[in-house]
Each structure stands twice: as C-alpha cells, then as structure tokens.
C-alpha cells in the first residue's frame, strides 16, 4: 500500500493491467459465445470502429490529465464536417486546403476553450459546455439542418473508408496518434509538465513552470484531435452534417476513464485510453455478433460499464 502511493509508476501500471485483464475477459467471453467473433477481419473491424472515437479520447486524456474536461469535442466533430462540406462544395477550394481549414476550426475552438479556462477562470466543465452549445449552434446555422454529400471527394472518402494493405486508414492514423501522444506524454519535457499540472497545478506554478501555457496547449490539442476525427467521420459517412458528432464527448470521456484516467486529474496513460477504446468497441461488436437488438445493447453497455468499473476497482485493490 505504502509503496504504491510513493511510486505512481507501479500504480498506473497496475491499473492498466487491470483494464487489459477486463478486455481479455470480454474477448474470451464473446469468442466462446459467438463463432463469428474470433477472426482477423472482425478484429480489424473492431479496431476500425474504435479508431475515430479513440482519436478524440486521446486528446481528452490529456485534458483530463491536467484536471480539466472538454465537452465541446462532439460539437467540434460536427462543425469540422460542416466546414469541410462548405469549403469543398460551396466555395470550392483544394481538398488539402479544405482539410487544413477544418483542422484550424478545431484548433480555434480548443484555443478558445483554453482562453476561457485560463484567462476568465471559468471552470472547464462550464466553459466547454457553453462552447459546445455555441459551436453546435454555429454548425446548425451554417447547414440550416441540411446535409451535404461528400462522396465525390476521393481523398476525404479514402481517409474514412480506405485501406493501406489490409489495414484501414483510420486504424493506421489511430495507431500513429496513440504512439505519438504516448511518446509526448512519457518521453518529453512537455509530457512531464502535463503530468505535473495534473498532479498539483499550484505546486507546478510555484515551481516556476508556465501552467497557463500548458493548459492552452492541451485544450488546443484536444480541439485538433477532435477535428482530425471530424475529417475521418466526414469520410466514413461521405457526408457533412451538423449532427455528425452528437454524443461523442461522453463516449470519449467514457473511453478515457475506462482506460484508467482519473476525472480529477494527475492520473492517466495513453496506452490505457487505447485499451479503453478497444474495450468499448469490442463490447458493441460482440453484442452485435450475438444478435442482441439495439435497445438491449444500450442497457447492456450501461451495465457492463458499471461492472467494468467495479471489477477495475476490485483488481486494483486485490
């Protein structure tokens, strides 16, 4: 007990192992109960379904790490697809330029979140909730409720649905993002600073680190990851819609927390979030493979989420 408190590294390690164990139990259970579940193709599709939500959850992990929260990510996904639609269809610009503008959308919203949290001192939950409402409104205003088809834009569609060899492109991007952000968190000065702010922001400030700059960077990064996911969503749906990202903020938080990130800051790992994303995806895939109707899936997801948290707590203590 004493040792675990003194040594955060072992603590985090154990928590990840606990979640990995839960994941393995889930995979084993589904493999036994459904003969279609255990196949390479199905596993690829599981990771593919985890990819987009997972990319958002990676950014969310950083925000949760510094003791914040970002409820605006779902609306950023929506606005990103809408901006893509606008700039590709209505003011035709080059695809790459449109993607750059779409990414800038997320960066701007993330920066504004940082501004509200850092400069105005608004609690993160409220700042990003207000931002979510405003961004969603802007997206609805631009589209006026209509959807725009993007199926003519090959690059966008390829990003969302294409394959590189046997590997879907979203999976590739998800893995690259996971590795990059993992290295950033564990092997760079910036990552050390992020973990320091999450552990104790006041102490970090007194140590002379620029806490504000780190907060700005983390919120901006979360916005960037959300709009990266937004581009993939636009590609996967071949469509721009102001409703494309509704509810994703809660899913991203669920994924990060399942992966062992604390809602109170200071604790969390990128690899844990990766496992969390897989877990949610395995759950949905498995329930579909078992032929469970959608309504039961909602109930089952809630129950399994609670069970996983209880089991996680149990494994961590035991």
């Amino acid at each position, binding site marked *: 007990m004493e040792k675990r408190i003194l040594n955060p590294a072992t603590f985090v390690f154990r928590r990840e192992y606990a979640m990995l164990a839960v994941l393995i139990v889930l995979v084993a259970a589904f493999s036994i109960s459904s003969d279609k579940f255990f196949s390479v193709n199905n596993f690829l599709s599981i990771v593919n379904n985890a990819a987009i939500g997972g990319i958002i959850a990676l950014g969310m992990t950083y925000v949760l790490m510094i003791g914040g929260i970002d409820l605006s990510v779902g609306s950023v996904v929506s606005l990103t697809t809408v901006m893509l639609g606008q700039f590709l269809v209505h003011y035709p610009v080059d695809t790459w330029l449109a993607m750059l503008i779409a990414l800038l959308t997320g960066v701007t919203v993330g920066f504004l979140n940082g501004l509200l949290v850092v400069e105005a001192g608004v609690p993160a939950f409220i700042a990003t909730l207000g931002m979510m409402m405003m961004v*969603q409104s802007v997206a609805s205003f631009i589209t006026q409720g209509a959807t725009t088809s993007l199926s003519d834009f090959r690059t966008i569609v390829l990003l969302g649905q294409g394959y590189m060899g046997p590997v879907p492109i979203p999976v590739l991007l998800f893995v690259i993002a996971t590795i990059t952000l993992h290295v950033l968190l564990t092997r760079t000065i910036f990552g050390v600073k992020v973990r320091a702010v999450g552990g104790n922001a006041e102490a970090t400030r007194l140590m002379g680190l620029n806490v504000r700059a780190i907060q700005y960077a983390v919120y901006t990064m979360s916005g960037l990851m959300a709009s990266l996911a937004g581009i993939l969503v636009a590609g996967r749906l071949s469509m721009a819609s102001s409703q494309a990202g509704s509810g994703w903020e809660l899913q991203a938080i669920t994924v990060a927390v399942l992966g062992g990130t604390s809602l109170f800051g200071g604790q969390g790992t990128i690899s844990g979030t990766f496992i969390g994303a897989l877990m949610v995806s395995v759950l949905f895939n498995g329930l579909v493979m078992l032929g469970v109707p959608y309504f039961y899936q909602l109930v089952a997801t*809630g129950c399994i989420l609670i069970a996983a948290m209880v089991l996680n707590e149990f494994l961590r203590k035991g």
Partner: protein
Amino acid sequence: MNGNDIQQRSSGIQAELGKPAFRWDRREWLLLAVVILLALLFGLTNPHFLTVENLLNILNQSTIILLVSLGMLAVIVSGGIDLSVGALASLVGVVTVVMMNDLGIPAYAAILLGLVTGGFVGLLNGFSVSRLKIPDFISTLAMMSICRGAAFLISGGYAVRTEDRLLVSLYNEKLGPLTLPIVVTAAAAILMFLFLGRTRPGRSMYAVGGNRHAALLMGIHVQRTVLLSYSICGFLTAAGGILTASRIAAGSPTAGMGWELTAISIVVLGGASLFGGQGGVLGTVLAAILLGMINNWLSLTGMAWWLQGFVQGALLILVVALNRRILSEKLSSWRSGMPASGER
C-alpha cells in the same frame, strides 16, 4: 497565521455554512437584475412579451426543466453530478403510460408508480456512487444508457399514445390564474428551499459537498446524504417526466434528450459550484426563468431556433465568468486556502 485571523476565518465559515440558502447573496441579486433588465428590454422590443398571458406562458414552459433542475441542485450541492435525468424522465413517462395502457392500472396509481420508479433509479445512482465508489460522472452516464435503453425496450421504440383524461389534463389544468405545473413546481421549490436551508439532511448536503472529509469527521452520514440527494433528483425528474408525458399525451422514448446539460447549466447559472457546497433554490429558479424568457423572446421575434443554443452557451460562460469577479473576496479566500480535495 495569528489567532485573530483564524477566528475571523472560522466565523466567516460559520456565517457561510449557517444560512447560505436564506441570504440573497450577490449572485442572486445579479441574476434578478439581469432577469428584470432583460424583461424590460424584451418588452420594449416586442409588445407581446410583457403581457400577463405571455409571462404565465413562460413560467409554464419553464416548469418541467425547473423541476429537474431542483433535483440536480440537490446532487450538485452534495458534490455530485447526475447525467441520467433526461433518459430517466423519458423512462418514467413511458413506464407510466404503458402501465395504464397495457396493465390497466388507473392513472393516479400509474403516476404514483412512475414517481416511485424515478426515486428508485435515483437510489440506484446514489448506491453506485456512494457504495460501489464508481465516479458519479461514469455511474450516472451508465445509468443514462440503461434508462434510455429501457425506455426504448418498454415502448417498443415508438411513442406510446394515451388518451387518459387525468394524465393528459395535468399539464393544462388551471388552478385560478395559474396552471397545475406552476403550482406543483412552486411547491417543490418551496419545499426544496426549506429542506436545503432548514433541515439536518439538507444542511448536511452543503457540508458533504463543501468538504467531504470534514463532514465525515463532523459525524455526518456522508453515504446516506449522497444516497438521499440522488433519490431526490430521481423523484423530481420523474415528476418532470410525467408532466412531459401529459404535455405530449404520450410516453416517448426520445423525450428529455439533452436535459441533463440544460439542468446543469441552470443550476450553475443560479450560482452553484460544480465542486459542491454552493448553490441555492432562489438562484436556480431565477436561472430557469431567465432561460425560459430568452427562449420565449427568441421564438416570439421569429429568431432562428439555432440561436437559442448559442445564447444559452454564451450566457452560461458570461455569468460564470462575471460571478467569479463579483463573488465576495472573503469567501473565495478561505476556500482557496483549503487544500484541494482529491475526491469530490
């Protein structure tokens, strides 16, 4: 820190813990000023706004979300959060209507059972937060998924219509110049006001939300207090769900979408802190009326529907940012002097 300082601080704390719900603090004055100012402004720009009929209409339209917000207030004051309210309201509506239609239970009994369902789900939330120690955000999020799924399952995926006189007339029933929802909500607000301000469990909620560990050391039954706060929230949400079913004459599995975030906005606009220990009924009521007024004015003037969300979001950020400046220095200084608690 000298003795005098400590004494000053603790008397400040005493005053704060003594009667925050009864004292109109600056935030509530600010909110009242904003409400009156906006009402005048809206009245000037639109002649239909400041009519008795329209004002009653605004009150009537604010009732359902206010009921839910009052429940949310109990949870937030105790330092928790409840994301399941929207889904629960929809589940209660569906359960009530299905009990009447398929099981032939008389309306009053079905309504009572609906309220019991809400209280029970709230109790489950409280149980998983206080006993199973699952973070409130996650356990109520899971409950949201479960309630929504259950509402879809029981209703078969479609709104279940009802023509029962009693249930359908609830929402429009006139009691003198007021409607039944207004009277019920006013009664709930007064009861919550007295409960949070004057009773032992109500005061315990402020203590638990303010500093859980200190509350425990003071001998407050923390787990029971948390359990109670979620149960109250479930119960009031159920009342909101039944009024919704009455309004649309159906139990709809898609009702209440997004209510959780609206209710949280209202409670926070009303001066509550998401870290717990702060907030009051007066502020919550004013905030609900404020949002009701703005939405009413936007639709009266034919402003686009999308603007409602924008204004609501901007207002939320603005008021909270202003509150942080206006909030009394004394309060914030002793609060920031306390160690940040790891657990809410």
